[in-house]
């Protein structure tokens, strides 16, 4: 079960609840086995499994609640200049510790958190992320850019708030 720790990690980041994450992973494995005939050899099994996990999450009670309560900005619109633009990034990060990054990830809307996890933790390519999320590559790039800016903003607020 080499994928289990990674899938579980993603599931808990999505649900933010241990029991729900366990149910989500279990259902993902059962669905993957059931639908294994539809798996195309040569495609990325990690992205395929994540797609199942994500679809299962979106139809779960928490997933439905999340998709109803979190509104995502229009991804085609230009990205607004972030409040933290004046803070040099390396200076900001020099003051950020692992806990601050975890907190920032926790505070992100689920769609932003998800894309950062897929790109930075899972190290999926933009093409693989586009397949997993069923969106064009251009949307992956703009959503990722927004997500990172949002994360920097949260970090900036945390660090500035903490140093006051």
């Amino acid at each position, binding site marked *: *079960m080499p994928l*289990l*720790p990674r899938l*579980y*990690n993603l599931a*808990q*980041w999505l649900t933010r609840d*241990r029991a729900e*994450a*366990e149910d989500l*992973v*279990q259902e993902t*494995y*059962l669905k993957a*086995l*059931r639908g*294994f*005939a539809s*798996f*195309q*050899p040569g495609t990325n099994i990690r992205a395929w499994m994540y797609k199942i996990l994500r679809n299962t999450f979106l139809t779960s009670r928490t997933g439905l609640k999340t998709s109803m309560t979190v509104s995502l900005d229009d991804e085609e619109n230009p990205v607004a200049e972030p409040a933290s*633009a004046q803070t*040099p*990034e*390396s200076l*900001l*990060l020099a003051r*950020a510790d*692992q806990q601050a*990054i*975890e907190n920032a*990830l926790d505070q992100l809307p689920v769609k932003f958190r998800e894309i*950062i*996890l897929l*790109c*930075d*933790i899972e190290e999926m*390519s*933009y093409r693989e992320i586009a397949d997993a999320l069923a969106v064009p590559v251009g949307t992956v*790039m703009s959503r*990722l*850019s927004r997500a*990172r800016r949002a*994360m*920097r903003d949260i970090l900036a607020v945390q660090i500035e708030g903490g140093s006051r």
Partner: protein
Amino acid sequence: MTCDPWSNKLDAYVDSELSGEEVENLESHLRMCSSCAADALGRLQMKRLTQAAGMRHAPAPEFRLRIEQSVHAQKRARSWFSWLPLSSAPPSRLRLTSALLAAAAVLVLMVGSFDLWLQHSQREHALTELADLHVATLASATPVDVISTDRHTVKPWFAGKLPFTFNLPELQNSPFTLIGGRVAYLEHFPGAQLLFEVRKHRLTVFIFQDQAGVPFLDGPTNSRELAFNVETWSEGGLRYVIISDAARADVHDLSQLLRAAAHS
């Protein structure tokens, strides 16, 4: 502040999404532009920090075990019920012709015995559903809703939850233990799902009304190749199905106890 044409490429640069030529051009710009270089460095640091912070949730060992058991059981159930080849290799012309001939032969047979095939297919589907329920129950942290070894506690628990009633056997002088039960659904019909144990093996007994419309065949499944042993019969308008990885003799013994209880 960073330079517009380049700053848009910085995310793709740290994510290794740029082509060789684009990387070369960007890096020659970074050598001359301290602002963009600092931005790129910051993004890289952020990515590294996120990588370190993001892997914070690990599955509990007992959950890992539960998943492994569940997947293993599901695989066995799949190999039992799947009767179509799952080859993903592209079909050659010869293979395609053979496949078409085979399909034509199957079709002729199917036309001759369509009703039989339909019944068989529905039965396979129903058994798959029940096997899935059995596997999911074994994998669940809360396999039953009423936990009791006492049949006089378990049977009344179903009152008002099911449109029928049934008798449970006295297990005192048998190797079986009753663990508990829950309500299960097959084709939208509610039924009883009872969990028994014999020498560490779990047995699930399903009881549905016969008019649930699922054409089961009576009797035990005899093949030794089956991952699970199944026995099913109809008694007093109720359909009983036992599914377990326990020995066939154990499954049969439990069926005898349930049959005797139904007559009492």
